[in-house]
Structure formats: C-alpha cells, structure tokens
C-alpha cells in the first residue's frame, strides 16, 4: 500500500466514525486535511475569502450530516467531498439548484465489499497520479473546467482533453454498478 492508500483508508474510517459514533475527533482529522482544500477550491472558483471560509465550513458540516451516504466502494473521500463543495458552489455563487440523479443507496446496514473499496482506492490513486503527470497545458485545461471557468461549449470545443485517463475508472464504476444491481 502506498502512503496515499493508507491516507484514503484513514479518511474512510473517519467518515465511518462520524456515522457510527458522532466522533468529533474523527471530524477534526478530516477538517484539518480537507477544509483548507475546499476553501482553496472555492477561491479558485471565484469566491472571495469570506464566502469561501463560510462555504467550506458548511461543506464540512454537510459531510457530517450526510456521512451515511458515503460509500467508499464508489468514491474516495476526496471525490465525495468535491461533489459536496461543487454543489455548495452552484448554490452560493451561481444561485441555482443542482438537479441530481437519486443516490443508489442499498440496504442501510449493508457494508461495502472490502475488495471493491480497495480497488476504488487504488484506482483513485492512479487517477490522481495520471492527472499530476499530464503535460501542464492539459492539466491546466482540466483545472479550468473544474474550477468552473469553461462553459459546456468551451469544453466541447477542446480537443486536447485527456479523457483516456478516466477510461479505466469508468470500467471500474460500471462493474461495480452491475455488481450492486444483481
């Protein structure tokens, strides 16, 4: 296991500790790591510092409230927190609703398969590495898109988007969905 695998595992444990025991100690660990990242993300997306601070706190509070929805076999903690932060950004900065497909949540006490969790974590780690290894120009393009600086039309006109990096991630997600549906 790499250091990042261990980290990812730790974040998932922390979220489980919030879900199961309302652990403020586990929350503090997550807060220390993720709140400054969420704040940085929101500021890169156009929020001023005051708004970013406020929203980052709200994002972390949402993490607490929705701890039950986190499924470590479907998303890394960072990915899940990204989706919460993005939704907060749409709400606070763009003042719009965010229609979403319903969560696929299975039986409430059903624990995810540990093999799936491990595979997901490894895949997330590979994706992070692959993005870090991209030529600057391509990485900058992805950042621009995810910080909300590119419209759909602009994304569609980009031919240099390195979509190959997510191909195996798609395959993994599909396999898992099929597995969960049976």
């Amino acid at each position, binding site marked *: 296991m790499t250091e990042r695998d261990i980290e990812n595992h730790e974040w998932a444990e922390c979220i489980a500790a919030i879900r199961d025991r309302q652990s403020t100690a586990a929350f503090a660990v997550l807060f220390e790591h993720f709140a400054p990242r969420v704040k*940085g993300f929101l500021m890169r997306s156009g929020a001023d510092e005051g708004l970013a601070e406020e929203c980052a706190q709200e994002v972390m509070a949402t993490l607490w*409230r929705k701890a039950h929805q986190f499924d470590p076999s479907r998303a890394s903690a960072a990915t899940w927190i990204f989706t919460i932060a993005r939704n907060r950004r749409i709400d606070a900065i763009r003042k719009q609703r965010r229609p979403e497909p319903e969560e696929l949540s299975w039986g409430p006490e059903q624990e995810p398969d540990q093999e799936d969790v491990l595979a997901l974590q490894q895949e997330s780690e590979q994706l992070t590495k692959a993005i870090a290894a991209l030529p600057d120009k391509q990485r900058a393009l992805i950042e621009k898109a995810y910080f909300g600086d590119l419209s759909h039309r602009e994304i569609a006109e980009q031919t240099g988007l390195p979509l190959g990096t997510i191909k195996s991630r798609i395959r993994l997600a599909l396999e898992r969905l099929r597995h969960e549906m049976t």
Partner: protein
Amino acid sequence: MKDKIQHHLSDALLMAYSAGSLPEAFSLTVASHIAMCDECRARLEAFDSVGGALIESVETVAMGNGSLKATLAMIGGAMTERPKARAVTGVLPSPLHDYIGGDLDDVNWRPVGMGVKQAILPTSDEATARLLYIPAGVAVPDHGHQGMELTLVLQGAFMDENAHFGPGDIEIADEHMHHTPVAAPGMDCICLAATDAPLRFRGLVPRIAQSFLNI
C-alpha cells in the same frame, strides 16, 4: 429498458455537469438521463473522481481561527441523516419528480396546437426546460436552433431524419441541425427538452405555434 439506451450523453456534457457549469435546465436533463442510464452514471462517477483528484492537489488556503469550533457548533452534535429510501418508480426519473412535485399525472400541461402539449419547468433563465407531449404519429414543427437542444425521451419514441430515440435516449442537437422529430406510432411520446436559445420554427403554422410555445 436500461440496456436498450442507444443515445448517451457526450463527454463534454458529463464533464460540464460534473464541474457544475451547466445551466440548470441542462443539468436537469443530464441528471434525468443518468437516473435512467447506468452507463452514464458510471461515466459521471469517473468525471467526479477527476474533481476529487483536483481537490487533493489544489493549493490550500488556511481556515480562519476557531473555524473547526464554529463548524462543530453549526453541527451541534446532530445525528447523521439516514439516506431516504429510493424513490418508487413512476414514468418520470427522480430529478424530474422534484421539479413537478409528482409524476406524469401531476404535470400542468398547456396545449400548443396539433395535439401537442407542453409544460415549462421552473429553472434559472439562462436556459429553458420543458416537458413535451406529442401524440403518436404527430410531428413537432421543423425548427433550427440558435444554441444547443437536449431532448430526453421519457415515454414512447420519436424519429427524425437522423435516428430513432426511445425511452432513456437523449438527442444532442446544435445550431447546425434542422430536424423534424415525429412521434413514433403506437404510443404518445413524452420528452424533456432543454434549450439555451429560443427555437426558431420555420413556416407559418409553426410561427403561430411559436407564440403558443412561449419561446
């Protein structure tokens, strides 16, 4: 039904939806397709994980003094929320349920002529989302687009010069496209359509329809 979907979201639409930069009407259409399509749900999860990777690599900005304490106070020791059970399935996918406040029976249809009915949904005004009800065999007037139009089939099917679209299929049309969708015979067709610019109908009857369509 799920395996029969032939027409899917583009990578650009999925990335823009994942990044959160689509107008609300398009987000609603994308979310509704994903609720009906496992393949695009899996693709979306992959696009979201790109966002996760960026959260890990973004330059951090220190939180204010006492921010952890303030956040814990905001939470107030609340229990975490149990996820709600999955919505019971009607014809409409769950994101649409939320906008209509019910299923098909609750849609507030307005006639627009030739048996066609529509219901405009409340979204931000950069783009418009509407439900269209097209009787079996009836054509929607020929129209071009100034921008993009997404059409998601919810029930029945339609055909145009290019292809056949059944339940769950999404058509992505741009301003270069002039087409005449016709509802397939046998079953009335219900679609969700999102446009980012007014449709331009061509010809006299369509011009009358256009004023009815409020576009």
